[in-house]
């Protein structure tokens, strides 16, 4: 996935393709976008290697990437407590100021507790109940959405985990960890005064928007403009980035 993002080679068969060929983005720009992606999304060693390979200055604070990566890894592992501690270590204000993010993290922690006790042979829900009582319940009345989230999460204790209704099943899905990890990543980035997401995400959205505008206005463009990343079946850029962008950490 690393190298394929830069691929622009496509067989010429449409006037549009020639235009594409004429517009040669500079290598520096592409390198910059890649570097930006690696730094923002948190791939420190890939970033280091890429810097070496492309012969560019590595981004200033690889260290701060590392901190973010550790927090994200903890989240993806399901070790929410150390993730929270890590966030507090990095910037104690993030959770103090963003009650909703804090709640999301605590709820994730509750979900992990519930997961442990439901999968174990001897379900003991005391830990989960205690956690919910002390951490989540006090906050629930402060916002209606907190209450709803909490209620839904607590429902996990009641229903058997193998036959859950879709909204409940989604809570146990690992993608929730990913979603929260993304929120945390963005919160950390914005607390550091950086962009919340990689530049390339914006570029991809721009591309999709431009394409749909062009189609609306019946411009002459090929029926399919592949990104040229993977197989021909994966053309929708948004979904493509959903699956590729937030994927497992690339620690090499």
């Amino acid at each position, binding site marked *: 996935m690393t190298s394929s993002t830069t691929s622009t080679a496509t067989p010429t068969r449409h006037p549009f393709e020639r235009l594409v060929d004429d517009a040669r983005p500079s290598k520096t720009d592409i390198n910059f976008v890649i570097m930006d992606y690696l730094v923002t999304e948190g791939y420190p060693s890939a970033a280091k290697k890429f810097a070496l390979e492309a012969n560019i200055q590595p981004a200033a604070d690889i260290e701060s990437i590392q901190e973010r990566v550790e927090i994200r890894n903890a989240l993806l592992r399901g070790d929410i407590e150390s993730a929270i501690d890590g966030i507090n270590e990095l910037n104690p*204000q993030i959770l103090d100021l963003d*009650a*909703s993010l804090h709640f999301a993290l605590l709820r994730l922690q509750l979900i992990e507790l519930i997961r442990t006790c439901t999968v174990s042979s001897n379900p003991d829900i005391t830990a989960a109940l205690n956690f919910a009582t*002390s951490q989540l319940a006090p906050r629930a009345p*402060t916002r209606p959405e907190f209450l709803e989230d909490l209620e839904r999460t607590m429902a996990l204790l009641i229903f058997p985990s193998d036959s859950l209704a879709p909204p409940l099943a989604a809570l146990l899905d690992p993608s929730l960890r990913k979603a929260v990890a993304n929120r945390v990543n963005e919160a950390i980035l914005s607390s550091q*005064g950086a962009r919340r997401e990689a530049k390339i995400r914006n570029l991809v959205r721009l591309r999709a928007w431009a394409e749909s505008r062009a189609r609306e206005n019946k411009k002459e463009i090929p029926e399919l403009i592949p990104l040229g990343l993977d197989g021909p079946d994966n053309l929708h850029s948004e979904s493509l980035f959903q699956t590729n962008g937030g994927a497992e950490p690339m620690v090499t």
Partner: protein
Amino acid sequence: MTRPASPPLLAELRDPSSISAQVAALRALKNEIIGHEQRKESWINLGVVPPVVRILTSARARGKAASSRDGNGMSRDGQGIVHDSFGDAQDEARLQATIVVGSLAQGGPAFVAPLLSAGVIPPLLATLAPGEASPQLLLATLRALDSIAQSLPSDYPGVGLSDASLPSLLCGRRNAENIAAILSQTSSASIIQEQIALTASIIAKSCREDRHRAALARHHVLDALAARLASFIVATGFILSTAEPSADRPHATEAIPPPAPSRAQLAPILEAIAVIIQHSKYRTLQLLFSPAMVAVFPPSSLDPVAKAAWGFALTPRTAHLNPIDQLLPQLPGYYSKSSSPQSAAFPPLGSSRFSRTSSATNLASELGSSNERALAEDIDSPLVAWLVHVARAEGGRIRVMAAWVLSILCRSGFAHKRREASLALLIVPLLVRILKDECDKLDVTQSPDACDGWAVIERAPLVLALLVMDSPDLQKAADDADAIKVLAQLLKKTFEAVPSSTRPAYWSANPTETQYASSSVEALSSNNLGPAGVSPMVTHLMRCRAGALSALAAISPFKDEYRKKIIDNGVVPYIIDSLKPLEPGAAGVSDGISTTSAGNPPSVLLAACSAARALSRSVSVLRTSLIDNGIATPLFSLLRHHNIEVQISATAVICNLVIEFSPMRETILDAGVLHILCQQAHSPSAKLRLNAVWALKHLVFSAPNDVKMSCVRELGPSWLIQLITEETDDFGNYGEEFRPSTPRTPLGMGSSNAAGEQVDLLNSTEPERPCAGDEYEGDLTMTDSIGSLSRSSRPDVSLETNGANSSSRLGTAPSTTENIKARLAVIKDDELDPVQQARRDDIAVQEQGLDLIRNLICGPGAPEMIDFLFSTLGQDQMFHIFESKLRPRVVDGDNQRADRTGARAQRAASAGTTTTYPQYRIGNIAVSASSSSSSPSFSQPPQNANQNQTSGKSIPPTPEIILAVCFVLVHIAAGQPRHRQILISQSDLMSELVPLFNHPNRHIRAACAWIVINLTWVDDTSDQMNGRARALELKNLGIESRLRGMESDPELDVRERVKTALAQLGSLLR
């Protein structure tokens, strides 16, 4: 609580078993409390604050010792390492403790109170010293200070915390220098950039008094901020420096800072700069002339040729067009509209600063040929163009803050007048749009977490107000952008009911549990939460309210059209509601305010007063909307408000409500306004004195004699004498010689010969109407002064006359830093010298005092009043005072004040300039409404600032005073024959009058002619003989010949008056 508050943890904090255990305890505590308001509370109740603060203090002492050892280059032997690791642990403990403090402070005023009473601020500030702390510790400290500053000064005085120690300590020399050092870091590491942003944010939050701002400027914090700003300019690549060290500035390029790193935040820097430079032209200049700014935008780019091209774009892309202006869209149509051939011929000097105010337009048109008069302060800083560019390119907070700095620069006269056109098209609509977007987003039920964007909507209306307040063009632009509707919407939104508590109570598994600890710990203030203070949402809404009111006031002072639009938007009831003060004893206020209905803080009261004043300038509004909504009652109570600024503003509104035709005059009189105003006239505050005398002046106009007499009695005859005598004998009247052709109409007399016809009240921009009758009615009409009353900035004449030479001096760049320093010193003196300020105040009050006398002796019962004044004030004393007012004064070298003057003159001379510095006159730049804290009342007339006099010179009195005296004499002469006889017998006084017939000020010439007309008026045959004697006396004084010389006076008004006077003289002498 299931995770019980663990006493072991607390014990560990109080009495650590080992340093590492202490660190662990602190870390655990930190993770306990972050994000948990409930736990923060119970930990504070358990008494966690004192030990944590103690750790901060003691760890510092030890940490310092360790670091100083390192600094001495101690060899890293085994012992050293032990020490180091001990030091590291100490540092870690300190870091964790600081984080705990910061997290506690996040909770708001209630949580900050115990921290303050435990004395948390000194150890935190001590951490700012360079080399004292690791970057992480510094960052944590700044975060904690920022959180504390956030909840520190409440907008409601007396509610919540009122601890002023942070700002005062912060602005102390040592801390200010530390702050400057933090700001000057150039590392691009994000931790450093965050430190810089936080520091700027702390400055913006805590710097609320002028002395703090001055201290920060003095201790180079402003310079450091300017360097940060310059680094952004470098990053955008817009340096105008030639980068070639020239002979006189060999090190110019060295001062250019490195470009700002990508993580640097511009908005906090701009905000901090704006906070520091507001209300002060001196500090604004300090910004522009700070080393980094001079390096990036060298003043040589201001030379006349460049300036000609600067804001003009008369022919786009001329050779000298500034690179930054090229980034801005060309607006040829707009420019051509406002440019005249004349001003094109005199590019940098051509525009009249006058046209900024409507009275000015009036004057400028009267002046006609003097349009191209050079104006000294027409510097157009390249920074202005850059800020316009930034405001357009960026969004949100950066846009608003850039516009704020921009507005301050414009209002201080550092933007070319021509820029107004581009501001009207490029900035005003942007501000209104951002206001509209944010206003739509404003939701009172919103949780306080979303307060990130609050700064934008709190600040945007104030910036808009500042930008448009003196400029009819920009007011029009604001109206075109539909600002009134948006502001009305915003104002109404601030009255929506806030949900009873924006921060709903936390649920607790065991509600009684939270209380268990309190009994066990001694009831220290550091162990209990403070009062909740004002809920963040209420504070936010009140700021929005004050902002909306200020902006409405700033848009509407000149045009009835806008006032009407404001009324049509249904704003008046809300303004009246905004005039209701917070009752100090109101229920629940001491604990905290969580509704907007409890009353308004002073900031809102001030803004509401200025809005009410702007609206009350319209007769129709005065007679309908304002009275229908009952403005008098709340306003009246504000006259007795404990905050003096509020009193001043309320009195300014009263000025407009007590004019003769106001339907509220009787009501207000009956309520006892006379007594209050007379009391206020004795106030030690010069502003309040001025406004009160002003209001009295309006009140007695056409009032029955008993009201007039009780006014004099209430004021005290001797006090009144003192008021008009005050100080001037010593050092009052300076500077007249520097403005020989002074065009300025003294306040309140602009249309005095319109004889009380109030019609043109609404159109203060209309050219003055010539006098209709030849019988001089002689009342000092107050109508015009209503117009001038709330004009925030009055044209500054002294600037004008010396403009030609001074602006050329300004135009040529100050080639040396000494030169810059010398200029700054002069401005500083002018702005900060209390003597000068006092002098300006005195003159202003004096003028009003004389006008008050004038109004006392005009109208139907005038003769009786003249006799009354003669007897109560003393006839001889009165004439003696009048005479001394007209006589030029010799500066007395022995006088202490004169000494100061001399010293200043010397300094000025040593700075390489020989005459006065009129170009640096700090007119009262219209900053008043820009800030909620300052009174939006009309400014003091900026007279007599130029007193860089060489001692021993004779100094003529100011035209304002001369005119005021002349009109009092006119009225005395309009009395009965015996009054005329008394006047003509004052030979000393009469001979002082003679030279005034050739006074450059046309109003004075006209007034002199009026004196003659009245003196030669003969009521009946019994007066015939005396009339003839008076005419002879006038002839003997040489007045007749003077009048003959005035027959060809350029002014029609003067010519007509002279014609009448000569005719009457002639018929008597025949």
